[in-house]
């Protein structure tokens, strides 16, 4: 693969990035080729050392998505970074997708439980109707509502902890990718 072919393929794969970002990255890789040529290597050898342009593009997009998640940590950006990383290979599926999936499931469970407890007084009313039995259950309903509020707060705090945890995992993983790209 010649330098022109490599850079053209890389440019095509980085189509989602802004023009400035793309230009900067392509300049970096052009510099890699120039440096390699100066060391007496052929374009094919340089291309082989750099790795397939598809994989390089995926690694770059992963790195950028992690930077974006760090700058503005939200679950959505974390998810984007995780799925960008998952495309890099099976190891990343294990290292990123599994903790992400477990964390999301736990959070979802916590929110569902909080919602169920919070609406439990209404469920009791629907089930028992306005009856003496329902009135006798009012203290219990108050307790379940109170528990629901506490679980709700825990779930919201859980999102912050989850984002921090996933960012730490993504950061350590991206360091390895950066080393590879150097």
């Amino acid at each position: 693969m010649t330098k022109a072919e490599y850079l053209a393929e890389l440019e095509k794969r980085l189509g989602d990035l802004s023009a400035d970002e793309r230009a900067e990255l392509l300049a970096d890789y052009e510099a890699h080729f120039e440096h390699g040529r100066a060391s007496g290597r052929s374009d094919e050898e340089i291309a082989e050392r750099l790795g397939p342009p598809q994989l390089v593009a995926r690694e770059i997009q992963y790195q950028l998505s992690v930077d974006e998640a760090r700058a503005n940590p939200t679950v959505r950006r974390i998810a984007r970074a995780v799925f960008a990383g998952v495309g890099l290979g099976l190891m990343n599926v294990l290292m990123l997708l599994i903790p992400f999936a477990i964390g999301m499931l736990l959070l979802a469970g916590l929110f569902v439980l909080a919602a169920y407890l919070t609406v439990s007084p209404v469920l009791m009313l629907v089930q028992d109707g306005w009856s003496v039995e329902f009135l006798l259950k009012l203290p219990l309903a108050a307790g379940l509502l109170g528990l629901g509020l506490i679980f709700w707060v825990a779930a919201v705090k859980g999102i912050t902890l989850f984002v921090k945890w996933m960012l730490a995992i993504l950061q350590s993983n991206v360091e390895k990718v950066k080393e590879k790209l150097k």
Partner: protein
Amino acid sequence: MKVNSRKLIMIGLVLIGIAVIGNLVMYAIGVSPFNGVKINEERSVSAEGVSRIDVFSNAGDVRVVSGGDEITVKMTGRTERMHKGEYHLSVSEQGGRVVIEAARDLKRKLISIYPDDYDLLVEIPDRLYEQLGISTEIANISAERVRAQHISMQAVHGDIKTAGLAGRIGARTDTGDIRLGVQAITDDIQAESLLGDIKLVTEEKPEKLALEMKTLIGERKVELPGTAIVESDPGVPTVQLSAEAGDIAVSAGR
């Protein structure tokens, strides 16, 4: 408006405090929802002349054991006061056939303090009956040391577990495991489970046996050393075990 999480926790703790104190006071008086009522129904009927026993239970586990001089039926459990009327038990005898029916009204429960199920214990005198049938909808079946020329057990959703049975046996469940413990394989045995494992354990090893084991997704295992497995033969007991998704095993022991 951003709600202060500390305020929410305080409100939550106050509400829990109200719940604890309120329920403690009401429990002491005896009107708390936690003052559940026991379900304790018992019926007895003479076993003289009885050749057939049929047991139906929709939502409670059934356990049939041998013992006593009469056919005794006990329905036990615990529920909220207002739901006690939802449990029904009837035992009737006619023409040598005893019919035992236990049921709970299956109303939709959005929130419940008690599990709302019940247990049904049926004790029958130890002798050979013509037919014993046990049928449940969403409940398990267990039978110990009972004898009948034909024993039929059917659970729509539930496990079937037996120990020391004797006679011709049929067991079927849509979702659940079947563990058949028999004294000896002297009559035909048929067991079918759509989703669940099937295990047949015999205390005495048969000399000969016609065995059919079918499972679409699962393993088949036979541990009957010294038993000749033959093709279907009128003089040889036939064992047919079938599971759509589940393991099947036949072994000797207890």
